[in-house]
């Protein structure tokens, strides 16, 4: 073991990781999936959604921002944490207007997939049905804020990968909304349909126009296997080692 490596335990499994990575990254490299929505590979961690909440040495921490430490004991797949994650997903659903039955993102949506993975058949909280605006001004990209989960993946991707800063937020708490860098709406920005910011959206908030329902039901990303299965199957294949 080099001096750059640390040893930690996730749900009792001993793993080695580079000392500079986060708990989420260390887990993923070892075939352990920690559920997440606002984290996206290649973007700086944000810690917004809290779906990746784990107990690190007993303390609740988002796995996406928590660095690994030598000897750290991490709880991930426990009844308590699964319950917290279910509650967070429930809250995201009732705070927005998520009409899965006609959404173009359905079947490829990470929020929906997260609810499927956690066995949610109905949220436990009352629906709020908030008023949120649609911006269809851009010729190639649609913003439907009804579906926005405020993960900031588009905000970070536009800034860090596209070098543009097209997206940001206005308002606070329940009034927080996705905003764009022009008073003219999305059409007034420098956004291009091929920007990383567009494909970074985990839900159906930022959608490319004229490509909806391209994949038939049954063949979409999360139709057959739960989200995270790809990461876990790496572990299954390594099982003999």
């Amino acid at each position, binding site marked *: 073991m080099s001096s750059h490596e640390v040893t930690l335990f996730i749900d009792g499994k001993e793993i080695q990781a580079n000392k500079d990575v986060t708990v989420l990254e260390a887990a993923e490299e070892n075939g352990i999936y920690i559920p997440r929505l606002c984290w996206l590979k290649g973007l700086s961690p944000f810690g917004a959604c809290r779906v990746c909440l784990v107990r690190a040495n007993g303390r609740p921490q988002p796995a996406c921002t928590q660095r690994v430490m030598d000897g750290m004991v991490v709880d991930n797949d426990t009844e308590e944490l699964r319950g917290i994650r279910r509650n967070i997903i429930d809250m995201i*659903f009732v705070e927005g*207007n998520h*009409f*899965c*039955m*006609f*959404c173009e993102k*359905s*079947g490829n949506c990470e929020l*929906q997939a997260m*609810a*499927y993975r956690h*066995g949610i*058949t*109905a*949220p436990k909280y*009352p*629906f709020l*049905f*908030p*008023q*949120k605006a649609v911006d269809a001004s851009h010729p190639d990209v649609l913003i439907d804020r009804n579906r926005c989960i405020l993960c900031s993946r588009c905000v970070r991707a536009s800034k860090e990968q596209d070098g543009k800063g097209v997206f940001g937020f206005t308002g606070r708490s329940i009034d927080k909304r996705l905003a764009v860098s022009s008073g003219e709406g999305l059409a007034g920005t420098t956004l291009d349909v091929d920007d990383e910011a567009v494909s970074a959206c985990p839900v159906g908030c930022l959608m490319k126009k004229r490509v909806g329902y391209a994949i038939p*039901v049954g063949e979409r990303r999360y*139709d*057959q*296997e*739960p989200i995270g299965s790809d990461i876990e199957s790496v572990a299954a294949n390594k099982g003999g080692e």
Partner: protein
Amino acid sequence: MSKAKVATTSLCGCFGCHMSVLDIDERILDLVQLVEFDRSPINDIKHIEGTVDVGLVEGGCANEENVAVLREFREHCKVLISLGDCAINGGVPALRNMVPLKECFEEAYLQGPTVHNPEGRIPDDPEIPRLLDKVYPCHEVVKVDYHLPGCPPSADTIWAALNALLTGAPLELPYQLVKYD
């Protein structure tokens, strides 16, 4: 053994979930061996008398009549199931929940581009159930025991759930059968 009693209704739904019940195809012959239908649009029985084992409710509550029917189901059903997205989250009818009811009426009966209403009257006959301010999911009105999402839930989903309930097996549906679309 006497047959289990099943009741079904469509509140603010499109009957698509009932179509999906019929979509179990020839398995419906097995189903009629297991169950007897009480109140249901299939036999047009108007009210549940006595106790029913399983109630399937399609659609959310958009008006006072929906609430009355849902309460009758809750009162008479040992197990009540929200069948489909509208019962669970309001579904497409809940798109009006972001618009005040007054504006909905004005658009539908006064200002809509195809409206012909010279008297400018919004229907208010006492025979017409009054609309609620919003479309409510069933579990926000009465206690609901199980939710079967989908628009509609697939025939396989409905079959698996009914089979489990009627044979006393645990209601654990495989991943592929729980979908929101």
